[in-house]
């Protein structure tokens, strides 16, 4: 869904970042436009997950250089909750369990904090309930999950579906999916991928972070980037993912002499 003149959602320029003083990101460059789906692949330890957390503003990561523009504003100057309220969504690799807080309450407070940010009226419990029930279908989730504590006792697949449900409700401008396919059996993978596809449109963008090509069988990316040693070393189309699947990462690493 690439259109030449569509709006730039995210522009990352020579970004460097450290965790506990160890450099992880060493000059990331990436531009994502509305309507696009990007995939970042790469071996373990290449910095893929760090990149997603830095974009979301995780407090453990320190940005040491570069710039990130998101919808025309300086992303790095925003607090994590303000990034989220402006439509940046991170689907966690390991969604956290929050005992004692019901899934429904969590979703409602989250949704309303975004409404408030957009100067819209908050939805009351009844209207919100209708909205949630409408969205449950996107990930084929049972309403019983709503009354349970956030992710508590959920299976791996249920946690990931819960992430996509949150995404369906929040309707982000930029959705970053960190290893969303890990730990999913094929049926769950299809449901999750189906959800992501339903939510993708010409106004928003998706960034997939993944180890494996199999997710890309269900969500077709416009661009595939290979990340190694803290930066993107090669960019291609969908075919690049297939090539990586067949040949592994070594040939790219060698070719780029990383």
């Amino acid at each position: 869904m690439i259109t030449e003149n569509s709006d730039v959602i995210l522009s990352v320029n020579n970004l460097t970042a450290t965790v506990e003083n160890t450099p992880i990101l060493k000059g990331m460059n990436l531009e994502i436009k509305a309507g696009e789906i990007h995939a970042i692949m790469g071996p373990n330890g290449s910095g893929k997950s760090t990149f997603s957390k830095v974009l979301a503003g995780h407090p453990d990561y320190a940005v040491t250089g570069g710039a990130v523009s998101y919808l025309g504003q300086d992303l790095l100057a925003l607090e994590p909750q303000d990034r989220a309220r402006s439509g940046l969504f991170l689907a966690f690799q390991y969604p956290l369990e929050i005992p004692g807080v019901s899934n429904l309450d969590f979703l409602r407070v989250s949704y309303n904090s975004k409404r408030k940010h957009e100067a819209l009226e908050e939805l009351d419990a009844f209207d919100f309930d209708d909205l949630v029930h409408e969205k449950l279908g996107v990930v084929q989730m049972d309403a019983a999950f709503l009354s349970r504590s956030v992710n508590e006792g959920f299976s791996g697949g249920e946690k990931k579906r819960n992430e996509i449900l949150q995404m369906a409700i929040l309707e982000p401008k930029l959705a970053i999916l960190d290893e969303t396919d890990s730990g999913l059996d094929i049926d769950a993978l299809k449901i999750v991928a189906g959800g992501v596809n339903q939510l993708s449109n010409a106004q928003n963008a998706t960034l997939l972070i993944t180890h494996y090509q199999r997710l890309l069988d269900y969500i077709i990316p416009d661009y595939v980037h290979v990340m190694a040693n803290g930066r993107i070393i090669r960019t291609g189309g969908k075919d690049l993912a297939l090539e990586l699947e067949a040949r592994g990462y070594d040939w790219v690493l060698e070719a780029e002499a990383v």
Partner: protein
Amino acid sequence: MSTSVQTLVNQPYKYGFITDIESDSIPAGLSEDVIRVISAKKNEPEFMLEFRLKAYRQWLKLVEPNWAEVGYPAIDYQKIVYYSAPKVSEKKKSLDEVDPTLLETFEKLGISLSEQKRLSNVAVDAIFDSVSVATTFKEKLAKDGVIFCSFSEALQEHPELIKKYLGTVVPVADNYFAALNSAVFSDGSFVFIPKGVKCPMELSTYFRINNGESGQFERTLIVAEEGASVSYLEGCTAPMYDSNQLHAAVVELVALDNAEIKYSTVQNWYAGDAEGKGGIYNFVTKRGLCQGVNSKISWTQVETGSAITWKYPSCVLVGDNSVGEFYSVALTNNRQQADTGTKMVHVGRNTRSTIISKGISAGHSENSYRGLVKIGPKAAGARNYSQCDSMLIGNQAGANTFPYIQVQNSSAKVEHEASTSKIGEDQLFYFTQRGISMEDAIAMMISGFCRDVFNQLPMEFAVEADKLLALKLEGSVG
């Protein structure tokens, strides 16, 4: 942009004002003469003076306990004022006659005593320093035979009931602070629910310490006769002083056959400032006696205030099939210290008890649960379930659990579960990534953590308790 959980900053204490009112105080210090003066000022019957003197003589022989996980400089008992009352010649018959300054004070605290604004289904006894200034709905309650009045009034009007029950649950020499209270207590509430009566409304006492040098020693006695039931709530606040004030109360509950007493506390005494200067020493003895068969006593407490809290609301389960419950949330922040819990003493057959304790420690505070479950030799079929959960916020706070279990009957069943959790940075990040501020995130997690206890509070107060905890932790992350 470090968003790590750091030291805690408390929301300013909004009940810290001082009411400027002339008071009738006696000089500081304690002696038999002082006790005689207190008793004379209150025009007490002879048996009451004897009770006080007996307690005082016992107190002199007792030693201040030091086993709790709390530390404080030695208290000079000769520097405390043992009687302080707003200067009013006598207890007013109607609220219109009560000093408007006092009504205003309670109004400011959110406790409306005026006819129009008061909570429709809650009767209130308002206690200012040492004396009760007003009790609402008295006449209405009297129609059902319910007695709800200040302790002083009860001594004048129902001395036979006081004589029959006072000190039967907490004997004068029970412990150091109970003995002190028995010697010098000034006022408190008295509740009597006659046989077969279900009290038609919530009863509530609101305690306010105003005087900077005075101690507050109130005495509460609640008696539910056969088949009677009552739900009672107490609330407490105090002004902010740099000095520490002693609050040593005694609460006695008596439940006869098939009677039920539910006692809830929302304690928000001044806790001292962030460095631990000032605040109330809350050293309280609360005990309920399930004397009759099938009787039930349930304690619910939300402890958020006081520099030091030392209290163990307990149940003595004498009647067969009687039930004791203890639901507690204790929150400590900054330099607060709390050593609180319960004692469930099973004497009768098939007695049951439940303990649900939730401790939350933030800042540099120390929060300990201390509980005893004792199953006596005759308590065949007794059961206890205890659950003690601690939650830590930040890395400077401490939580301890001291469960004592003594079982002398082999048919008894005792279960104890405990957990400690920490509000983790990753959990907070998860909330913020969903657009929820850290304050809201903590409030939601705390509220979820405390739900089992809050569900036990009367409706009007459950919401209050939730807000209170959120307020206490506001600004607790940076």
